[in-house]
């Protein structure tokens, strides 16, 4: 029940924030802040003291901490079914934390209808939480779609100069692919009907269906498309630079930090477990797309002159690692992918917050018009440097652990792809440092006045710095949370060798 309460809390908080604008224009953000904090505390408090044994499917899909099932549409075997496991918990905490960051980053940015802004923000969070919790496929799709609308409004109303184009592109890309997913979900459910004689959209009922290989392949593709558009993987990424660039800071933070993770989550939770055989067949293509994304994103990031666009392309590059990790499909790579989800969420959110702060102060995102900002804003510079090196994968920070694990896992499967993907480490260095050079280094414009980060912003940044360092030096708690899911994924294939068999020439002889 507490999961439903969590979502309702965010929804209600949104309404409250919206209406509180009538009383005082500052009230919405406090309301939003309070809501997210309360939700976070509530989530952590409502966790069961020890892991109860909850319904697990025949294939042993991890250990579920919480489970809720309410009847909704028995006509189609659809229920309000929510469940929480380690992975969901991890992503929920990330979501709420980044929600806090998003609120903090929009603290003084929004002066037009702040109430509605905060409401949309909270509603997006609610939708994302729903995505991470839903285990009924229909419900999942519902949250998947519904979270788009407040996000769309965030971009379309409070975005920058080219917001219409960006918001529309974002919506159409995700919606079109979402429709394909709906199709795939329905096909899957009907396959379930054929197999078990009962129409059901429950994840647990659909797991382990034996599908007709061809149909399974196409159905898998439907899911895959929806998730990779959201992820985004090359070549479905083109909505992302526009959306990220045009969104208000909080929107970019949410988009990059959380919304992209829903794609990865979907692949991890649904696409692969539901279609293990098809995914196995598809893995080489998916990994190819991942590598293409890593390199393409990095090269394009370097080519940008717009700060936010650069960060956006870097996201494309980083999410390529997630795709690689997921389809390399061994423990190391999967853990790496999960780590990357978390670490990238934090580092990119921070960079977007920084970009937003710069835009708010300089009224430009064009790096050609910046330069030497370190002189005027050393705190900003230090933060920028930290997150730039985080995003280029400096050891000791979360991103490194993630990328290293992914590549390590991938190397066992596809050494040549791993070698190609490792080029991403170099290209990441190129664009990250180039970004630093253009913004904070170089000779300053002495006439320019630039207010450095204030306490609020430093607090937000500091949180993220600490989180990244923690992830980089002691990521074990995160890994442990994700471990059950990853174990269950590994059970899906006969053995590790099945994946390795895809790559002739890769010999694995572990001692």
């Amino acid at each position: 029940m507490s999961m439903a309460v969590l979502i309702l809390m965010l929804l209600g908080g949104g309404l409250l924030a919206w209406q509180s604008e009538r009383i005082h224009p500052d009230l919405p953000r406090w309301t939003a802040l309070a809501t997210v904090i309360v939700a976070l505390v509530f989530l952590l408090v409502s966790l069961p003291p020890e892991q109860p044994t909850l319904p697990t499917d025949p294939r042993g899909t991890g250990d579920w901490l919480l489970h809720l099932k309410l009847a909704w549409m028995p006509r189609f075997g659809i229920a309000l079914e929510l469940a929480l496991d380690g992975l969901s918990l991890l992503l929920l905490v990330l979501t709420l934390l980044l929600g806090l960051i998003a609120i903090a980053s929009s603290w003084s940015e929004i002066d037009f209808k702040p109430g509605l802004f905060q409401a949309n923000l909270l509603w997006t969070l609610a939708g994302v939480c729903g995505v991470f919790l839903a285990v009924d496929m229909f419900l999942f799709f519902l949250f998947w779609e519904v979270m788009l609308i407040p996000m769309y409004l965030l971009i379309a109303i409070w975005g920058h100069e080219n917001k219409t184009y960006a918001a529309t592109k974002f919506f159409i890309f995700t919606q079109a692919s979402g429709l394909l997913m709906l199709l795939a979900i329905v096909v899957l459910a009907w396959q379930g009907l054929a197999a078990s004689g009962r129409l059901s959209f429950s994840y647990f009922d659909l797991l382990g269906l034996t599908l007709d290989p061809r149909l399974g392949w196409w159905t898998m593709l439907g899911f895959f498309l929806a998730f990779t558009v959201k992820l985004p993987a090359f070549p479905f990424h083109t909505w992302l630079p526009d959306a990220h660039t045009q969104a208000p800071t909080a929107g970019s933070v949410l988009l990059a930090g959380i919304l992209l993770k829903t794609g990865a989550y979907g692949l991890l939770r649904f696409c692969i477990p539901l279609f293990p055989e098809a995914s196995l067949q598809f893995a080489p293509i998916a990994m190819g797309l991942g590598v293409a994304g890593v390199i393409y994103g990095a090269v394009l990031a370097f080519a940008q002159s717009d700060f936010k666009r650069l960060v956006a392309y870097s996201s494309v590059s980083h999410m390529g690692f997630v795709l690689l990790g997921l389809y390399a499909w061994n423990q190391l790579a999967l853990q790496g992918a999960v780590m990357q989800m978390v670490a990238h969420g934090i580092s990119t959110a921070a960079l977007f917050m920084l970009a937003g702060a710069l835009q708010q102060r300089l009224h430009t995102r064009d790096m050609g018009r910046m330069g030497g900002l370190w002189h005027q804003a050393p705190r900003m510079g230090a933060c920028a440097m930290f997150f730039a090196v985080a995003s280029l994968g400096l050891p000791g920070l979360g991103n490194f652990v993630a990328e290293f694990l992914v590549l390590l896992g991938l190397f066992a499967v596809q050494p040549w792809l791993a070698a190609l993907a490792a080029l991403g480490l170099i290209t990441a260095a190129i664009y990250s440092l180039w970004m630093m050079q253009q913004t904070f280094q170089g000779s300053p414009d002495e006439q320019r006045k630039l207010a450095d980060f204030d306490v609020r912003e430093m607090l937000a940044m500091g949180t993220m710095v600490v989180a990244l360092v923690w992830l980089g030096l002691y990521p074990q708690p995160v890994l442990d949370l994700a471990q059950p899911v990853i174990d269950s994924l590994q059970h899906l294939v006969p053995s590790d060798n099945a994946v390795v068999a895809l790559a002739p020439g890769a010999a694995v002889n572990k001692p």
Partner: protein
Amino acid sequence: MTVMDFQALLPLLVLAAGATLLMLQIAWVRSPDLTGALAALILVLAALSCHFAVAAAPLQVTPLLLADRYALLFCTLFCLAGAVTALLSRDYVSQGDQPEEFFLLLVLATMGACVLACAVHVASLLLGLELLSVSLYTLIAYPNKSILPLEAAVKYLVLSGAASATALFGFALLYAATGTLGFSAIGQGLEETGMGQSVLLPAAVMIFTGLAFKLSVVPFHLWTPDVYDGAPAPVTGFLASVAKGAVFVVLLRLFLDANLFRYYRLVEVTGLLAIFSMVAGNLLALLQTNIKRMLAYSSIAHIGYLLIVLMVCTNSANQALAVEAAIFYLIAYTATTIAAFGLLTLISCDPSGRENIQLQQVSGLFWRQPVLACLMLVALLSLAGIPLTAGFIAKFYLVNAAVSGHHWILLFSLVLGSSIGIYYYLRVIHYMARRPGEHGTEHETISNRRGRILCGLLIACILLPGIAPQSLMQYLRAILH
């Protein structure tokens, strides 16, 4: 005719009596408010009477009409839609001269739709269709301050007349082939007749053409935007929802009763036209700046989605689900369309060009009329098929039906069409969300409390089946089994 017959036909009787009553009332005292309220009351009563009629259903009343729960459900729907239209158009027509007859015609048109819902015979189909159309001609041309309605009415009259004649010619050929006029008898006759398919198929195509014209299926869609655009907004809503719904209902009934699904070629043609409609309708709407025209084009696409049902019905195993899907879709679509056009009625208050509603006019609506804009948002999202709205569940139904029949091409057309469609719905939303200063001129809107309450109710009707559709689903299943 027995008492049972009368009970089964109660909604039609209420409507007929109501029409008479209205006429008398108009003759006695001219008062738009009174007539409007009375008309709405009659329509609501008729809707309520369906509840009583259900007790007698299913009952074949003369060879012409069949009052079963399927028909009565649609009677209820059409009557309610008519009542809402009556309430919405109150302000619209009261500015012209002699607005009272408008309501009379509205009641008659609703009655035509109800007749169509009950029709199982060529005669009742003909009469229902014409009663609906003839009333609509006048309704469309009703306002007398603008020439656009006139143009729309003439176009509709000429083309619709031709379409009716085409359908009738088809029926005549069928009659010549089978010697009967009842739908199911035609079906049986077709099985027995030796005249064969060579005459049957052109006949069926002519019938289908006639009805497809009224549904504005591509390539018989050209009239749609012009008529939607020119007609007064509430009438457009009525035309788009009730008139189309009624025609679809009778088309479905004809196909089911006469079991035309046997003729796979015919069904295939409907599938082809469905694909055309889905794609072309959405493409046509793509860059429209006139909202009414945009909705007209989108209605073409929606009919395309709906036609999928006919394809699915070919497999008798999936027929029940397909019909269920169609009913749900029609209900959702009717509620959404009436709401959308009702909102347009409230938005456009400029008396001179109120038939013509441009995107510019809704610019910044979110900030001027937040409630209205939110309602519009919900209506648009429902049309676009976004979850939590009836439109989504309806689309979900369709997808289920199509998946059950493995109609992949249709499904992909649906996805393609919907993907294109998002753009223009979003565009309206985007215009509504424009910040002050981003749009040129401010447009005044009337604050009409009653209209807003009504639209609010309609929005509830959109959201409720979107959020908790189970009871409706259960009811539909009960009807069909």
